[in-house]
């Protein structure tokens, strides 16, 4: 058996397929990195509950006080006026800008989603509130922060009557 000279040996044909093995390795490594680094989404907010609860008569409440409320259906109000999220953030930011004490009170319907309440606290802080006051838990029938104030209600009815007439 004589060996063929090198020049006469048949060379392998060129490989036309792409070798995807290194690509898969890289993708798997990236996948593992993202799985490790991606944290569970948690929104946090620090709150201080008051030591003493003071009951303030309705007439003594400052008129420029800001009261944010989360309604039972998940909607928001600012001083009893309904708002969408972004307009609420902007309006609250404007109102707080002119205030020396940037205090916002937050109230929520007992059946409102906890997620919504934390979102509201987050929104108030984002809008520039330095201090957040949390209203005490009320019974469903005692929660009035989402119902229009009597003056606004009358104005709304008058306006409706005017437009109807």
């Amino acid at each position, binding site marked *: 058996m004589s060996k063929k000279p090198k020049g006469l040996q048949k060379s392998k044909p060129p490989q036309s397929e792409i070798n995807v093995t290194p690509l898969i390795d890289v993708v798997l490594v990236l996948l593992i990195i993202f799985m490790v680094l991606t944290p*569970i*989404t*948690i*929104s*946090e*907010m*620090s*709150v*201080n*509950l*008051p*030591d003493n609860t003071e009951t303030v008569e309705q007439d003594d409440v400052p008129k420029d006080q800001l009261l944010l409320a*989360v309604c039972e259906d998940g909607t928001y109000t600012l001083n009893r006026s309904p708002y969408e*999220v972004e307009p609420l953030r902007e309006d609250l930011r404007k109102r707080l800008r002119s205030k020396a004490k940037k205090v916002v009170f937050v109230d*929520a*319907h*007992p*059946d*409102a*989603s*906890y*997620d*919504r*309440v*934390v*979102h509201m*606290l987050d929104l108030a802080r984002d809008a520039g509130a330095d201090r957040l006051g949390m209203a005490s*838990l009320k019974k469903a029938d005692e929660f009035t922060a989402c119902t229009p104030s009597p003056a606004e209600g009358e104005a709304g009815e008058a306006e409706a009557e005017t437009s109807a007439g």
Partner: protein
Amino acid sequence: MVAPRTPPEIYVDMTRSEPDSLITDINEAYQEDPQRSLLVKGDKNLTWQEVREVMDVIHSGGMSTMLLAVEGAKEK
């Protein structure tokens, strides 16, 4: 940790607790590490009343500073 059950289940460091023993369980956890902060984490499907009642129990135990957290996707 407040989990969405009826009534809601309360956990202190992954150990089931009850409203009556919650303060004791939290104090025990504090004794192990007094520098810890108190985080009240609740499922996003809970109602405000369910979480607020737990906060009131904690507050009645003399702890007035706590962190609130909600588990789930954050709405932007």
